[in-house]
């Protein structure tokens, strides 16, 4: 039984890490007033580009270097996702297209790109079989030597790849940035009231562009963690990244736009998703019903926050609206 509980908690942390990245990036984006529903697409882009980059590197050398694998895949994932964010920014900020529709399109597009190349990259490169990057995945799954052997504590806290810890650090840094730095406060001002921020001399467009692109880059790391660690350096056309991406969007609300809350929120979502592991005697069909839990909890949170109407739990005031200086 205790083995099962340990497995459940470990799975929760891994599951949570994927959506935590997605949510931290989206929090940055939404704080600047852009509701990017393209998070699933961006996570797809991050996942596939990291995978593709290390695939080409690994197949070009006989003895791939771990550090190079790591740098290449991280950079590729971050840049490709940020590019997705740039496309979204250009359409919504410069061309003032509707944010929701643009975001949904980005989700369709990103999913298309990722599943297309994920499914046919090997055949395009002249090989056969499923894409696989064993060497890179091994780097991502290296646990802390020594500490991970510390019995149950080691299993629960130190038995993960580095990206699990990076996510927590990012969440804390993001919280500090948004609440304690001049730039962070400027960015939030843009999200609350762009006209006032503009009058105060803050460059609205630059803040929005930067927040959306960097936010997208961070969200994309969730996809990278998913392909490299969660499914061990392969690809599956099963739409999991998309459903995780939507959960990340939901997590932003759950965390009431505070990245610190996203840390425990994401693990809680993971726990709810995997809780069927410790319930004995479930048939496969019952498991499907249990997997509904994170979504039901999100609905409950949505309803409860809307009933309480606490001022500090509300979304940024201009979320989802385009800003045009000459419009009153």
């Amino acid at each position: 039984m205790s083995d099962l509980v340990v497995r459940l908690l470990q799975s929760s942390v891994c599951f949570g890490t994927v959506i935590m990245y997605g949510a931290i990036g989206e929090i940055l984006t939404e704080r600047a007033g852009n509701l990017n529903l393209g998070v699933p697409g961006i996570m797809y882009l991050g996942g596939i580009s990291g995978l593709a980059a290390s695939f080409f590197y690994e197949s070009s050398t006989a003895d791939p270097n771990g550090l190079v694998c790591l740098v290449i895949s991280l950079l590729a994932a971050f840049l490709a996702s940020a590019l997705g964010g740039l496309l979204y920014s250009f359409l919504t900020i410069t061309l003032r297209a509707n944010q929701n529709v643009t975001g949904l399109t980005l989700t369709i597009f990103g999913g298309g790109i990722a599943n297309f190349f994920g499914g046919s990259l090997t055949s395009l490169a002249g090989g056969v079989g499923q894409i696989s990057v064993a060497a890179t995945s091994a780097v991502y799954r290296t646990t802390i030597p020594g500490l991970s052997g510390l019995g149950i504590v080691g299993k629960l806290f130190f038995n993960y790849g580095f990206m699990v810890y990076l996510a927590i650090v990012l969440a804390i840094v993001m919280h500090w940035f948004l609440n304690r730095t001049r730039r962070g406060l400027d960015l939030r001002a843009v999200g609350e009231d762009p006209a006032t921020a503009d009058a105060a001399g803050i460059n609205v467009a630059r803040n929005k562009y930067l927040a959306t692109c960097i936010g997208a880059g961070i969200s994309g790391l969730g996809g990278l963690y998913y392909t490299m660690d969660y499914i061990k350096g392969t690809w599956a056309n099963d739409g999991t990244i998309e459903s995780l991406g939507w959960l990340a969007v939901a997590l932003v609300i759950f965390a009431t736009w505070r990245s610190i809350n996203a840390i425990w929120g994401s693990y809680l979502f993971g726990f709810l998703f995997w809780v069927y592991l410790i319930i004995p005697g479930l048939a496969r069909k019952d498991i499907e019903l249990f997997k509904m839990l994170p979504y039901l909890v999100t609905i409950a949170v949505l309803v409860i926050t809307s009933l309480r109407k606490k001022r500090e739990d509300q979304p940024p005031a201009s979320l989802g609206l385009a800003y045009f200086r000459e419009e009153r």
Partner: protein
Amino acid sequence: MTQVSQHKDPLLRIVKRDAISRPKAYTIRLLAVLLSLVVSGAFIFAVTHLDPIRVYEAIFDGAFGTSRRSWVTIRDAMILLCIGVGLAPAFKMKFWNIGAEGQILIGGVITAGIMRAYGSALPTPALLVVMAAVSLLCGCLWGVIPAVFKAYWNTNETLFTLMMNYVAIQLTSYCVALWENPVGSNTVGVINQMTGYGWFPALFGQNYGLNVVLVLALTAGMYIYLKHSKQGYEISVVGDSQNTARYAGINVKKVTIRTMAISGAICGLAGFIEVAGVSHTISTDTAGGRGFTAIIVAWLAHFNTLVMILISFLLVFLQKGAVQIASQFNLNDYASNIITGIILFFILGSEFFINYRVILRGRKEADGK
């Protein structure tokens, strides 16, 4: 000593247009579509090295190459159109119903369930009526739940409807596991394959004739409802300004809930048409992302259901073409999502040039009007 820095106009200025003539607006949109076709063609060329002209030939061949392919294109365009028609009233009211996916699935699941359970008990016409009615009700329920919370407590409907999708998906997975046939396959298989109970009958000698008639009737009905009925007018007032609506004595809560009931019901009906009239089975892919694509169809058509016919056909045409090319080159179907994305990005971007004018430095504002 102070130096006065010379003020310079920015290189490009953006000015809102007062109005744009209809032909000009459509020329801009047409240009956007053409540009997107060039970019999609370039993408296909980059992946397959197929001669660019041959790319478009192959797309056309994939969509209309044989009479069977033409009917498949028509069939899929009809489903997409049906969902778009369902979404139109909700979006016109500025209610972000991202939950079409779930509303379709729940309508489809209940249709499949009835088809399995009562296939032999009722004659097919009666069965079709029952399935249609129940799928309408289920889709309606799926739409009304978030609407009630939105109306009374202003709960964020975008995320609520989105989460309802996943509740529906998990329910579908549950039913698929429950009904799987053969056991262990994790699919339901074609329901009533031998008998065809509960399947759409052929109309005018065409298997998908009834689909076309049903969806076109809905499209025309929705056009009239939105343009020429009192309720349609209320929807557009609420969509433009809730305060104005309240001032004019419109019951915003009632309109919100009623409109979402209609929207959800039609999406549920789309699930019924897909299951009883097309696939005769159910899986979590029954909606297949079309609930999202249809949002964009409705949005781009500015909720004019007649324009939606064109847009649905354009999207399905390109998707079929992309699938055809992908299968020729042993690539996978997701190519069609890439193409859809490219087209939509271009059309979305083109709206800017319809609403705004870009003026070069030195030109007068009055130029080019």
